[in-house]
């Protein structure tokens, strides 16, 4: 039995396989609509994330399966002080697979150690969110066509942005990937990601505070939100949140076939006017999230 807690648990071959299945689902949805008949997905959301939960639920329904669960800790037993281990032992006797989101980092890993059924980490605090990374990878695959030989820019909050850390780690396993990290000084990518993951993998990278410096070279620009809850004071947040706003003028400096991604929700880091540009792919990305989750559910349930 396999779980998915951290994106790096999946080999490059397994990611390729998931992407291939997701692409096949998009091409032939009717082939998959009964695959999970009589199977139940439990969505255990100890903190609310409507977007991620709906994506999981839509994925399971489109496979012909059923969904049960809760969407915030108040309505769950953890509000009464039940441990993650106990909750999981009970739920894994009702469901065939579990998607779990939890504010505490490492909670889904604890769940996977106690569960009788596969556990998918649907986000644990500021730590991991592997299905977001799979979503990003599927989008890059569909828009660019490959993971090797790409130049990707990451912009915004690179210090706390877990989606950036995971995607950079996942892409570090491909050939000739160049990474540009664009952020204010205060929100630079953590040194351990550079030193412990990217450098050993031989990834070429640069750090810059200037969004425009490498704009014309990028195949992918991955924008992120500057999250208010990560700041200790309001003044710092207000000073930094507008540092890197992508508008149409800037997008026009990008290559014709480049694409702009964003894990959503956005605040104001991408101007609304950019939505109309063909390089804006963030809504397609959200749609990809459902398909890759379908592929993942099939894989973990070992359904061909």
């Amino acid at each position, binding site marked *: 039995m396999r779980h998915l807690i951290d994106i790096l648990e999946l080999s490059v071959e397994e990611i390729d396989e998931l992407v291939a299945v997701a692409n096949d689902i998009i091409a032939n949805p009717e082939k998959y609509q009964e695959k999970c008949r009589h199977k139940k997905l439990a969505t255990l959301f100890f903190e609310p994330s409507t977007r991620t939960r709906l994506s999981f639920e839509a994925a399971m329904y489109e496979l012909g399966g059923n969904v049960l669960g809760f969407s915030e800790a108040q309505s769950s037993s953890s509000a009464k002080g039940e*441990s*993650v*281990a106990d909750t999981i032992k009970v739920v894994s006797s009702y469901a065939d697979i579990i998607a779990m989101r*939890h*504010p*505490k*980092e*490492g*909670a889904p*890993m*604890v769940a996977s150690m106690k569960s009788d059924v596969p556990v998918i980490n649907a986000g*644990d*605090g*500021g*730590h991991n969110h592997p299905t977001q990374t799979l979503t990003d990878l599927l989008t890059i695959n569909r828009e660019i066509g490959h993971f090797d030989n790409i130049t990707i820019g990451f912009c915004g909050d690179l210090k706390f942005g877990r989606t950036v850390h995971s995607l950079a780690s996942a892409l570090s396993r491909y050939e000739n990937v160049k990474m540009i990290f664009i952020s204010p000084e205060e929100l630079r990518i953590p040194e*351990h990601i550079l030193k*412990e993951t990217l450098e050993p993998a031989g990834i070429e990278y640069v750090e810059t505070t200037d969004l425009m410096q490498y704009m014309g070279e990028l195949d992918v620009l991955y924008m992120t939100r500057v999250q208010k809850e990560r700041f200790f004071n309001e003044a710092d947040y207000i000073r930094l949140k507008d540092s890197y706003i992508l508008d149409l003028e800037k997008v026009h400096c990008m290559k014709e076939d480049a694409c702009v991604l964003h894990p959503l929700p956005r605040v104001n880091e991408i101007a609304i006017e950019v939505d109309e540009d063909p390089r804006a792919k963030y809504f397609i990305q959200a749609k990809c999230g459902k398909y890759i989750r379908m592929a993942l559910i099939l894989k973990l349930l070992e359904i061909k």
Partner: protein
Amino acid sequence: MIIGNITNGIVLDHIQAGKGMEIYEVLKLSELSCTVAMINNADSVKMGKKDIVKINEVIDLDLDILGYIAPTTTVNIIKDGKVEHRKRLQLPERVVDVITCKNPRCITSVERGLKQSFKLTNREKGTYRCIYCESEAK
């Protein structure tokens, strides 16, 4: 100062000076009934100063904990007055219930009955990370 040689037992040599007492406590040597000698700040050609612990009996030692706290230690097993076996320690891959995760957002801060577990992620630098939240041990 001379402390008598032991015939059968263990000598923990080349302990980084100042770590001897910590080892004594972590390995719970006070609970042994045999003679245990602690030598602090002995002269050492290699290290300048070192600590030495002598245990007058061959006991099971948790080498992982020892390796984590004092990786320079050499473990000498003494049989019939001779060194029968000498082992240099290295940093263990895993340490359980020795380091406590300091990340307030880590599941170990709230989940009951969960062991604190850290894995070695960089041997050269001796970096350990919590297996749950991946925070670096401080």
